[in-house]
């Protein structure tokens, strides 16, 4: 049976994936991918800040649509 989760995804309003998660399942997956990619990106560019990273990601055509949505959301929060 479906339980109404305490939080809804702040990006799309769908139910959060689990009680610990902030986002729905697709946005959560994108968010996890973003988190683990930052170290690789930092290494690649040498001196990359987190805000610059998500800004670049939010405009990258190769990034998935959910990835860009999460990046845009994080960017708004940073500001």
């Amino acid at each position, binding site marked *: *049976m*479906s339980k109404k989760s305490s939080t809804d995804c702040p990006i799309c309003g769908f139910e959060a994936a689990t009680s610990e998660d902030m986002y729905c*399942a*697709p946005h959560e*997956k*994108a968010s996890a*991918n*973003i988190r683990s*990619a930052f170290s*690789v*990106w930092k*290494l*690649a*560019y*040498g001196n990359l800040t987190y805000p610059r990273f998500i800004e670049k*990601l939010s405009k*990258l055509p*190769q*990034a*998935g*649509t*959910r*990835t860009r949505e999460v990046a845009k959301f994080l960017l708004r929060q940073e500001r």
Partner: protein
Amino acid sequence: MHGGVTFFECTTRQGSVVVCSAIGHLYSVGTKGKVLRNTYPVWDFNWKAKSQVERRSTRLAKWIAAIGSLAENADRYVNACDYDIEGSLIGLTILRYACHGADRKASRMKFSTMTDRELREAYRNLSPRLDSSVAEAGRCRHELDWLYGINLSRALTESTLKQRRSYAALSTGRVQGPTLNFVVERELEIESFVPTPYWTIDAIIESEGKEYTLEYAKPRVPTSSEALQVVRDCEGQDLEVESVETREFHQLPPNPFDLPSLQAEAFRHFHYSPSKTLAVAERLYLGAVVSYPRTSSQKLPRDLGYREILHQLSQQNEYSRLAGKILISERLTPQQGPKDDPAHPAIYPTGEPPKSFLTDPEKNLYDLIVRRFMAVFGEPSLRTLSTMTLKHGPHSFLTKASRVLNAGWTEFYAPYSREYSQELPDLKGGERVQLKKIAATEKFVEPPPRYNSNSLLRRMEQAHIGTKATRAETIDTLYKRGYIKKSRIEATPLAIEISRILARHCPLILDPGFTAKLEELLTEIQEESRTRVNVLLETLSQFRSVMRDLVIAEDDVGSQLCRTVAAQTSLDRTLMSPCPQCGSALKIVRSRQSRKRFIGCTGRLEKGCSFSLPLPQFGKLTLLHQKCSACGFQLVLTRSKGYRKMISCARCYVNRVRMTRLKELTPMADPAAEPRSAIAILRKAPSSVQDHKE
């Protein structure tokens, strides 16, 4: 003619022979007794005349009547349908049900081409009995597919319907479920993809007035600092030729075509979808110019008479030179592939020239099949591949070249074999050359590629789901149901939701391993190591528990699906053109009183706007992305079975600009309540074979 059905009659020494076509399946699985359309699960079934099961198949009733009446007083029966599972089953059901149990005394005709010679020979050498085990396997497949399809689809549709919020006819099935899941998994991977940056180094040298592009030895440089360092180190410097290596290599002729490889090659060269290739190949087969296409064999047995076929091909202008060239060899030994099929050889041209006019797709496919057939008799091709390595300090650069020494089979397969030659710069080991240009470019790893109809078919084949004859059709069904779209396949939100629900409540249905295991069991029926009843019982015991879980979760499934269906429907029904009176969004809505559909303004409550436009009342409506050339309003496409597609502008007709032609298809909306509707026919009816293009 007999009862409106054409048949042929001839007289032989043994007596008169009547031949009547079957036009596909005349019988199919249906519910046993009267069962309401919204009841599930359904377990009782029997075989019925297709005309009783499907509304659109009513015309088949006269075929059954005609065959039944022609078969009266016959003393011998022959099933001469295509020699494969479906053909065996079509023949068996007709003989059993329309000819009152004649399957017990019927014989089977076996052939791979429709040439006069082979048909006569097949008729002389009839198998005394029907290939019952093959037909039983086919029967079991139809029964299982029906049980899975009707129960799962009803579970999805009914659980949504019971929420009383939205309606959509949802479907899934034994093969459809895992196939859709391949697309959905890929979609989710692409959606949440985070690309990794890398850099490439592009360098150019000039030798004797000609430019050559060099690759850096490391094709992907992982950091910008390393990439910039390479550019700084080498800019304006000389490179020294370190080595030139040349290798010769042979390439064997390709294997003869089985259906999947023909579909792949037709997609590569002509962009035909697998279902289109199959349909075109079948037309060529019926025209007796190629052999039976639904084959998994990559072998050409010697008794086909290679020399005779090549001799006949040499009589056709386009192929006379090449076929003649092969015929000079004393021994003809074709390249054979690893796959085999007990019923048919690989696809080959019969050698007979086309008797009727060939359409462009038929011409293309015929040419591909003929050239592939000739190529398999060719010699291996021989070419050299050379690599020159140039260095500056620790940095190495490569340039590659290739040259054809002996074209071999590629000559026969041209233009479908790519023959490229590229030269190396004329430099020797130790010589130096100046770098003309060097630059580092920032790039990003691309997301995994989307499937196209061909690669999705390959994926199904790899996972052993579906059969060579039905895979293309399954993909077509996914398009028709709106679960996938575009030629580089995208899964729709509804498809993602269905896969998610099935994964949560009945993961077994999505498991390709489960479906593949079932295919194995069906093969075992064909090989007579298992019976149909045994397979049905074993599979259904598992499936019953799947259905039990779905029934228990009905409420959950329904509410989740409802939300997605509603979101999708609302998206599908909102026009891009805003209301010309108040600027609010326009939507396709249905009048609560008259039940007629029309375009209404969403600003009705808030702004009191009463703007509305009429719509055709019958057929499936789709909002197009095109605008009306006269007024700029969004166009509407109407599709009705048996009628031509129509594109209309709801706004223009109110202004009486467009003409009306198909009044009978689209009765005018109630003139008192709504403005009148108009239709303009701008497009021809689609052919039966459609390509999925964006």
